[in-house]
C-alpha cells in the first residue's frame, strides 16, 4: 500500500469495483479497499438482476449465473396470481447470480486493469484539510495507515460511514429501510423458471416475500419488511420467514442464512463533497419498490469513475465540479427512476390487503405480453381511483414514454 493514489475507493461491492475499474481503465492510480476478508461474503442479497441491463456492464460469465428465468409470478393476499413475462418484469428478474463469485469477479476485473485491491482493510475516518477530503485513515491487519488521494469514492454500502464523516447525513430512518432475512433452501419442489413474489400485510408488512430459483432445486427464499412497520414486540423478518417457509416449503432444508438491510429512502439530498463522491447503497441509490440495487450501484460506479477522471484531469475536484460531472448525471438517470419508485412505494405501503386483492383481480386479465406502463395504469384505475390519483405524477411519465416510442 502506497501513501498516495489518484483515487481511493472504499468498499468492494458492485459499486466500488466498477468505480475502481472505470477509473483505472482511464489510467488513474487507484486503490480499492474492502474491510472484510472475503469480497462478496457473507452475501446480503437475493441475487436477482435484469439480464439486458447487466449486459451493458459486463460480459456474462456462466460461473456466476445460477438461474436464467422466464418471468415472475406475483401473488396477492388472497392468492390471486399475476404472471409477468420477463421483458416487462422490470429490475428483479432475468438472472439469479452467485454474488460471492460475481462480486469477486468484478474486483478482479478492476485489478486486471491496474487497480490495487486490499482486503481486510477498513476505512476508519477521512483526512479532511481546508474543507477538502484528502484521503482516509485505514486499518489493515490491526495496523493504521494514512492514505491520501485526490478523490475518495465512498462505496461502503448500507452501513455507510464515509458520507457521514464528510458531513453528509446518510442515516436511514425506519421508514427508509427494508430489513431482510433470507434462507437458501434445498430439497424442496421449486419452479426453476419463475420467481415468485408474495405481497400483503399478513405475509410481509410494507414489503414482500420472494422466491428466487438458484438452480439444482435450490432457491433464495427471503423477506423484506419496512422498518417503520417493525417494533420491539412485533415479529421480526426472520419470524415471518419461518412462518412462510413452514406453509410453502415445509420440507425444505436451510443451507444458508442471509440477513440485511436495503435502503428504500429514494434519492438523498447530496452525494458529493469537495474531493468525495458516494455511490451505490452508500448513496441510497437502490430502488424503493423492489429493493434492487446491484445495477444502480454499477451505473453509479461507472459514472463516478468517469467523473473522477474528468475532475482530476481538469485539476478541479471541488464539490461544484463533482456536481457537474457526477451528481447531475446520476440524478438524471438512476435518480429519476428512484424518485418515481418512491412515489409508488409511499402509495403502496398504505394499501390494505383488500386493496391489494382488488388490484390483483383487475390486473389478472391484462394482456401482459404487450403491457406498457399506460396499460398498467389503466388497469389500476379500474381497481382503485384513489390510487391512480396518488400516482398521477407517474402518468405524465408514462405519457412521455408513449410519445417517445411513437417517434
Amino acid at each position, binding site marked *: 500500500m502506497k501513501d498516495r493514489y489518484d483515487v481511493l475507493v472504499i468498499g468492494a461491492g458492485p459499486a466500488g469495483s466498477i468505480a475502481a475499474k472505470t477509473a483505472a481503465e482511464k489510467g488513474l492510480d487507484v486503490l480499492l479497499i474492502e*474491510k472484510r476478508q472475503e469480497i462478496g461474503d*457473507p452475501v446480503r442479497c437475493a441475487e436477482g438482476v435484469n439480464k439486458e441491463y447487466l449486459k451493458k456492464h459486463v460480459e456474462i460469465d456462466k460461473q456466476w449465473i445460477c438461474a436464467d428465468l422466464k418471468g415472475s409470478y406475483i401473488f396477492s393476499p388472497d392468492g390471486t396470481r399475476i404472471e409477468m413475462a420477463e421483458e416487462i418484469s422490470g429490475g428483479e428478474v432475468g438472472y439469479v447470480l452467485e454474488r460471492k463469485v460475481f462480486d469477486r469477479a468484478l474486483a478482479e476485473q478492476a485489478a486486471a486493469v491496474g487497480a490495487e485491491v486490499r482486503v481486510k482493510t477498513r476505512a476508519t475516518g477521512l483526512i479532511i484539510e481546508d474543507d477538502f477530503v484528502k484521503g482516509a485513515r485505514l486499518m489493515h491487519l490491526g495496523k493504521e495507515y494514512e492514505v491520501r488521494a485526490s478523490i475518495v469514492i465512498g462505496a461502503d454500502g*448500507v452501513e455507510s*460511514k464515509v458520507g457521514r464523516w464528510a458531513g453528509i447525513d446518510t442515516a436511514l430512518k425506519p421508514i427508509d429501510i427494508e430489513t431482510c432475512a433470507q434462507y437458501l433452501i434445498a430439497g424442496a419442489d421449486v419452479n426453476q423458471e419463475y420467481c415468485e413474489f408474495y405481497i400483503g400485510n399478513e405475509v410481509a408488512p410494507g414489503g414482500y416475500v420472494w422466491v428466487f430459483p438458484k438452480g439444482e432445486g435450490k432457491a433464495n427464499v427471503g423477506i423484506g*419488511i419496512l422498518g417503520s412497520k417493525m417494533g420491539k414486540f412485533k415479529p421480526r423478518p426472520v419470524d415471518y420467514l419461518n412462518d412462510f417457509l413452514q406453509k410453502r416449503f415445509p420440507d425444505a432444508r436451510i443451507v444458508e*442464512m*442471509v*440477513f*440485511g*438491510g436495503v435502503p428504500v429512502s429514494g434519492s438523498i439530498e447530496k452525494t458529493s463533497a469537495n474531493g468525495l463522491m458516494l455511490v451505490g447503497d452508500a448513496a441510497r441509490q437502490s430502488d424503493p419498490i423492489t429493493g434492487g440495487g446491484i445495477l444502480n450501484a454499477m451505473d453509479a460506479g461507472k459514472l463516478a469513475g468517469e467523473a473522477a477522471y474528468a475532475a482530476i484531469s481538469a485539476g478541479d475536484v471541488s464539490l461544484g465540479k463533482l456536481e457537474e460531472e457526477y451528481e447531475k448525471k446520476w440524478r438524471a438517470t438512476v435518480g429519476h427512476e428512484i424518485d418515481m419508485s418512491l412515489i409508488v412505494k409511499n402509495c403502496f405501503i398504505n394499501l390494505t390487503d383488500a386493496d391489494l386483492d382488488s388490484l390483483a383481480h383487475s390486473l389478472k386479465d391484462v394482456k401482459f405480453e404487450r403491457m406498457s406502463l399506460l396499460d398498467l395504469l389503466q388497469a389500476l384505475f379500474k381497481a382503485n381511483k384513489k390510487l391512480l390519483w396518488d400516482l398521477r405524477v407517474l402518468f405524465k411519465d408514462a405519457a412521455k414514454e408513449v410519445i417517445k416510442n411513437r417517434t
Partner: protein
Amino acid sequence: MSININRYKCGYCGACVGVCPKGALELVETWIEVDESVCIVCGICDRICPVGAIEVMK
C-alpha cells in the same frame, strides 16, 4: 443504559449500523462494536434488527 448484542444470534448484516442516527455502531467482520459515549439510547437499532440480536435498555 446498556446495549446488549447477542453475538450468537447476530447475522452481521450491518442494518443497525445504517440506521443509527449517531454513528455509534460499527461492524467489523462478524462483530458489532458500540461506542457508548455517543449512543443516545434511541432504540432504533433494536427496532430494525431482522433477528432481534440487539437489545437497548434504558
